[in-house]
């Protein structure tokens, strides 16, 4: 059923590289709008640097809110790239081919966006070198290795580095292709340098393939560690509602849920924006949707475990937290929206083949998933602080301010802008990979049926 893409090499080359060498008008319009949002966010950040964090909705004792939620969200989305590329590459799933590059690029830009947030969210961002990098040689004052906030940058930057390497290795043949097809000498020179002399010799191909496979295998433990460590930012404390041992796998699978959904959204947009109807087909989103059903169900199981074992100890503070999360207004609205968006609407819909193979409905449901997952992080982070311990006198409250909304909106703008810029400068579709898939495609006749097949070494 997973029909291979049918196009000869010439058409593939032209259509896959089309956007890199074209300048459609909408690109400038969208880019301009996104930049406008970024400027607004920039103003907010400057104000925060100059006058402190008074513009944010924090109060005693709720000191983490929207910005941390957004950080967790984008780290979560960044898990899509590796999930789709590395795991599917290792398991030799054929349908991964057109998906991989977009997913990896999404990883890079959502990671880059995510790391902004803990920085601007800290009280004195200009001093964060203490935290992320041990530079203070003379006083012998080092970062505190016991703090999850030190594990965080280590894991995230390792992940970022390896993802960039991963993308670059996969990009080499396409860079060479872009070099060969570049319309002017300047871009030819730039692509030429970037392609590092890739000429497509057997030896180069072998090294490129082996490097890709090795990086896939190495990256997987990193991928798991990143979101686990992000979850430990919360779970290592004794805060009721945060302190639950299920948090690490719960966050990881939630990240995959929202990340793969984001990939589907991005692919559907790309299909129309970049004219890739031939390469991004119903089969691809169908396969991703089936994967999503499994992921979403495991995620729901972990969520329920979090819930059950939160209440299991019947600690008053923990029960208060869950009551705040699920019952008290305004959280009850958020809780209902969250579970409806993240599971109750999308997953039953994905059970139907017609929905899985419909671009419009897949677009809607995957957007819903990410709305739900954003709210899920909000529900995890904030109510636990509002009901932090048995001292009811300090029960707090949190309401996001306009600044926080602007910053969150700008984070979306930043990721989209990064993605657009990448696709403008470099081939966003893995042309070499797709063409390889076309070569490896084959058919097997079984009785009267003619089954699509693929070669394996």
């Amino acid at each position, binding site marked *: 059923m997973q029909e291979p893409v049918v196009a000869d090499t010439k058409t593939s080359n032209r259509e896959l590289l089309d956007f890199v060498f074209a300048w459609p008008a909408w690109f400038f319009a969208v880019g301009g709008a996104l930049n406008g949002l970024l400027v607004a966010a920039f103003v907010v950040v400057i104000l925060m640097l100059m*006058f*402190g*964090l*008074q513009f944010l909705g*924090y*109060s*005693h*004792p709720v*000191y*983490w809110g929207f910005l941390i939620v957004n950080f967790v969200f984008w780290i979560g989305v960044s898990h899509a790239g590796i999930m789709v590329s590395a795991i599917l590459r290792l398991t030799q799933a054929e349908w991964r081919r057109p998906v991989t590059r977009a997913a990896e690029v999404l990883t890079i830009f959502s990671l880059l966006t995510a790391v902004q947030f*803990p920085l601007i*969210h*800290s*009280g*004195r*961002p200009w*001093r*964060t070198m*203490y*935290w992320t990098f041990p530079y203070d040689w*003379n*006083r*012998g*004052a*080092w*970062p*505190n290795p*016991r*703090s*999850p*906030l*030190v594990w965080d940058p280590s894991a995230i930057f390792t992940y970022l580095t390896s993802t960039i390497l991963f993308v670059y290795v996969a990009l080499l043949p396409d860079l060479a292709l872009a070099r060969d097809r570049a319309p002017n000498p300047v871009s030819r020179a730039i692509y030429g340098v970037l392609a590092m002399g890739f000429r497509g010799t057997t030896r180069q191909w072998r090294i490129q393939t082996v490097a890709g496979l090795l990086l896939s295998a190495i990256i997987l433990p990193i991928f798991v560690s990143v979101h686990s460590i992000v979850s430990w*930012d919360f779970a*290592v*404390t*004794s*805060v009721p509602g945060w302190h639950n041992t299920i948090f690490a796998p719960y966050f990881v699978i939630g990240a995959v849920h929202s990340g793969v959904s984001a990939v589907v959204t991005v692919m559907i947009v790309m299909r129309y924006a970049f004219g890739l109807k031939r390469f991004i087909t119903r089969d691809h989103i169908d396969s991703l949707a089936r994967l999503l059903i499994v992921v979403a169900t495991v995620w729901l199981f972990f969520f329920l475990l979090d819930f059950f074992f939160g209440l299991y100890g019947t*600690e008053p503070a923990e029960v208060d937290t869950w009551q705040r999360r699920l019952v008290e207004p305004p959280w009850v609205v958020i809780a209902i929206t969250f579970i409806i968006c993240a599971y109750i609407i999308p997953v039953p819909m994905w059970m139907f083949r017609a929905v899985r193979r419909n671009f419009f409905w897949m677009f809607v449901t995957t957007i819903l998933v990410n709305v739900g997952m954003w709210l899920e992080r909000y529900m995890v982070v904030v109510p636990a*602080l509002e009901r*932090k*311990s*048995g*001292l*009811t*006198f*300090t029960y*707090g*409250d949190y309401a996001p301010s306009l600044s926080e909304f602007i910053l969150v909106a700008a984070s979306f703008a930043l990721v989209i802008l990064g993605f657009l810029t990448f696709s403008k400068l470099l081939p966003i579709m893995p042309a070499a990979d797709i063409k390889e898939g076309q070569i490896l495609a084959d058919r097997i006749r079984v009785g009267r049926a003619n089954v699509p097949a693929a070669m394996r070494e």
Partner: protein
Amino acid sequence: MSSSANEAASRASAVSSMGQTIPTDAEVGHPEGVRWGMVVDLDRCTGCQACVVACQAENNIALNEEQRVLERRAKTWIRIERYWEGEFPNAKARFIPVLCQHCGNAPCETVCPVWATYHNNEGLNVQVYNRCIGTRFCANGCPYSVRYFNFWNPEWPEPMNNQLNPDVTVRTKGIIEKCTFCIQRINRVQVTAKTEGREIRSGEVQPACAQSCPTSALVFCDLNDPESAPAQLAEAEAGRSYTLLEHFGTDPGIIYLKKVDPHAELEEDSHAPVETHA
């Protein structure tokens, strides 16, 4: 520079030279192992807030205007928590002063990425303002919610700026602050004792809150000194003594003594908010 920063500097110098071990309590000059702490007798507390005001004046805490209190950004290193017991008209107000518990097993210390908060060798949980970058992770980790964040640079209108305590740093925006057990007073007494060549006398150190408490509900002491009056009090009143939120296992340096209510019904869990799971 505040004395807590000096603490950090002295500690840092001990760590920085490679191969040298961190000096023990005895080497630094506390052979007996001081652990500063407090005994809070809730039976004596009237909820008068004198301690709050004294703390405010002593430690250069920014003014808590009405707006600040409404938006829950007021800073009170020591606060009087008021709980209502029973239903109207038989309601009773119960007071409990809550300040940094200077936990022996502090949840805030482990999570700070930059060692801005750590445990010193006198049992104090110390905040180094210069190192703090304001991640506020410590404030989240603290079950007692006694850590406060500076959302802005504090300002004192004329002539109130003249009453600032020269011994205490004015904290800038973007960092966490909290009760220090008036570490500047502890240091002053220690220096005096040293120049006079004697030991610190029991009861010589008085933080502002304890000093100003009209009913002596707050008594500061060295918990490791069995001779000190408060330690003896806590011992004698063992039946009333407890620590706050015991089930968190934080080993607080503050011992609370339960209220004795002659009219109370014989129910164990009447202090619902401070109830611990026995």
